[in-house]
């Protein structure tokens, strides 16, 4: 079973994000970067498929600046076999369309039975790259996947996905693109032997030119801003409980306008 895992390096959820003074992006100094959590589910699922079929390969594909190697290396330390790192100034900070094009071009140069993407990246939250990638590769896709069963003959997958309030089970022919959702699995931690082995695993560096693409972004971000500071709450004191309830309902309806 050959899996291609598209992986993005993102700021750790514990990092305090600040917008830079001119509002063109975030302050990157001091940020600790990690693998996008949804992509960790993908790595884990790919490793499990390889273990289940006792053969195959887990290939990590990531676009990002030099530091993205750390994320690839971490996935290799978890047990993935090889990495492709697309490092190109023209692709950093680009929109999901450009990313999808680069991923598609890189995917076209590899062999795979299945492609995993996270259903979104927790930094920009677009959630588009996976779907666009499938379109560009003309592959079927299933989003928000929480369970994957691959038929023994590797021609199709039975996949469970999140739908509002429940689960949907679909059958999809391979190769396909799946986007991983929380609940898919519990990703393993890298191990010390894994870390030592990861040092020797190959990471192929590529530029946009190597992929033969010069994509034009369709989106431009104009400004970044922080959400407004939370204002102080309101206390309802010195009233009988039924009156408090009434006052709260009125406040929610008339002031907060949430009900």
């Amino acid at each position, binding site marked *: 079973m050959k899996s291609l895992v598209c992986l993005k390096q993102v700021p750790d959820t*514990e990092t*305090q994000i600040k917008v830079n003074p001119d509002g063109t992006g975030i302050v990157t*100094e*001091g940020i*600790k970067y*990690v693998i996008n959590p949804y992509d960790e589910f993908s790595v884990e699922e790919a490793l499990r498929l390889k273990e289940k079929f006792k053969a195959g390969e887990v290939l990590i594909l990531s676009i990002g600046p030099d530091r993205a190697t*750390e994320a690839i*290396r*971490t996935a290799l*330390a978890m047990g993935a076999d090889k990495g492709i790192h697309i490092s190109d100034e023209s692709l950093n900070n680009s929109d999901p369309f450009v990313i999808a094009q680069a991923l598609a071009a890189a995917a076209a140069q590899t062999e795979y039975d299945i492609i995993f993407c996270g259903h979104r990246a927790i930094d920009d939250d677009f959630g588009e790259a996976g779907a666009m990638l499938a379109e560009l590769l003309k592959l079927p896709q299933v989003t928000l996947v929480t369970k994957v069963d691959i038929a023994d003959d590797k021609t199709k997958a039975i996949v469970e996905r999140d739908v509002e309030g429940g689960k949907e089970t679909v059958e999809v022919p391979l190769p396909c693109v799946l986007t991983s959702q929380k609940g898919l699995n519990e990703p393993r*931690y*890298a*191990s*010390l*032997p894994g*870390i*030592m082995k*990861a*040092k020797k695993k190959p990471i192929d560096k590529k530029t946009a030119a190597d992929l033969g693409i010069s994509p034009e972004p369709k989106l431009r971000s104009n400004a970044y801003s922080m959400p407004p500071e939370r204002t102080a709450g309101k206390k309802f004191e010195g009233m009988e409980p039924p009156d408090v309830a009434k006052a709260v309902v009125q406040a929610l309806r008339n002031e907060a306008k949430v009900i």
Partner: protein
Amino acid sequence: MAERFVSRRNLEFLLYEVHRVERLSAQPYFSDHSRETYDLVLDTAMKIARDLMYPHLQEMDQKAPVLENGQVKVHPAIKGIMKEWGEGGWIAASMPYEVGGQQLPTAVATACNYVFAAANFSSTGFPLLTAGAAHLILSYGSDDLKETYAPRMLAGEWQGTMALTEPQAGSSLSDIVTRAEPTDGGYYRIRGQKIFISAGDHDAAGNIVHMMLAKIKGGPPGAKGISLFLVPKNRIKSDGMLEPNDVTVATVYHKLGYRGCPITQLSMGENDDCRGYLVGEPHKGLSYMFQMMNEARLAVGMQAASIASAAYYAALEYAKERPQGRKISSKDPLQPQIPIIEHADVRRMLLFQRGVVEGSLSLILQCCTYSDLSRTEDVEQSQRYALLLDLLTPVAKSYPSESGILAVSQGLQILGGYGYCQEFPLEQYYRDIRIHAIHEGTTGIQALDLLGRKVVMKNGQAMRLFLEEVGAVVQEAAQDSELSPYAERLKGALDTLGQVTMRQVQFALQGDVETFLADATLYLELFSIVTIAWQWLAQGIVARKALDAGCSPLDAQFYQGKIHAMRYFFHYEGPKTAGLAARLMEADGLTVNMTAAAFDD
């Protein structure tokens, strides 16, 4: 809410900038490693600590182990934690490749253990004891014992313990009475009682492997008659199956803190069917056990510092958010209250915590670096580092333990009444840290070890090396105009320590060993302050250099904070040396000459 219990930035500062662990790669044993590996290792440790260990901190305290039908039951999370430590290679981290280890420098492995212990101290008792016990088997055990036990212990499947203490023999191990009787079957028959044995029984491991001190019948009296045995809870039958080895759990203790880890009383040979396997030669057990004890002493210092670290970050977060009172200079009640971190006295408490936490961690990593450097093939150098490690081990064990208690107490103080209540973790940290001044040799015993043995060993050679090491840092700091006053202070304290040492040793030379060691604990305290000041000055030098060379605003803030904390240590803790020295120079035997009856009033 982001739960912070250690500073990654500080760990990197100490490992890479102060103790320069990357230089270790020059040695064959560490040559496969580089900063890239260490960073990935630290990343992983942080993640495991945060996701797997920290979430159980409180519950493991509240749901302490219980004894049910002769079996101790621990929190279910322990099983997963042991598994991860085993499968992830953390138990064997610094051991050789041949036994499945990764030859990680102990400095880096200890930094990771520090992260784990800061997240959930109790749970680190299990794997750390297992690592020490396995290392002991691998160092001195027969091939058979090595092959049978070590792999399963390193895999986190079987628990290792150190079984030394008996009801009548704690500090004084020469008084143990557990007996070992030779048999023809290739084993000894063990009879006796052990008390306070950490992780001495539990249901998260498939077997418990006790590294037990006992006396072989007919051997010499005292410490010279102590042998080391491997005593499993379940022994292995010829068909490979396990059968009970007549080790009974008599009690699991209810205790102040450290509640996630069971402390057991064990009874061996109640049915005269407990088998022990001799490790190494007869009567040499105590010297073998010192390998595990010395490792454990550093680990205890590390754990104490880690709890104090967690307490510091909890107190810091609170101090930034708790509005209370106003500046002394502006008492206008119409003005909003200020966060308590604005009060000088709260800052003093925070700085004290930092002084202890970062000074202790630096010393522990210094000791680990000595241990790693002692692997060099240069025999003279190797001995030098080994001696320094030997000398500083009692300090690295006891300073974090004793000062850590005070540091956590100050952290709790910062939270006021909330600190005393269960809603915040401070009260648990306060209870958890208290053990460290007791187990692995009480502070009193560490003090006797330092002054009575280490300082005078080899005609004071270790002490001379120590003075050299500190002297080198003093000299370097003296070159920097901002640091030179501190170099001056440390030099003064070092001279004082030298004089006090001479004074104490005189009593030893005169044969008055009672007076010589009467105030050993005060001597340890004096020695510790000098040692920690040395570690702070070393940090100050690095910070000053980095600031001079120019760095990012975020780094500049970090280094300036370091220099503040260093200055705090010199101005607030440093002066205590004068009082200690004054008392030690008196050396009048006040406590020796008093009669016990004079206490009853």
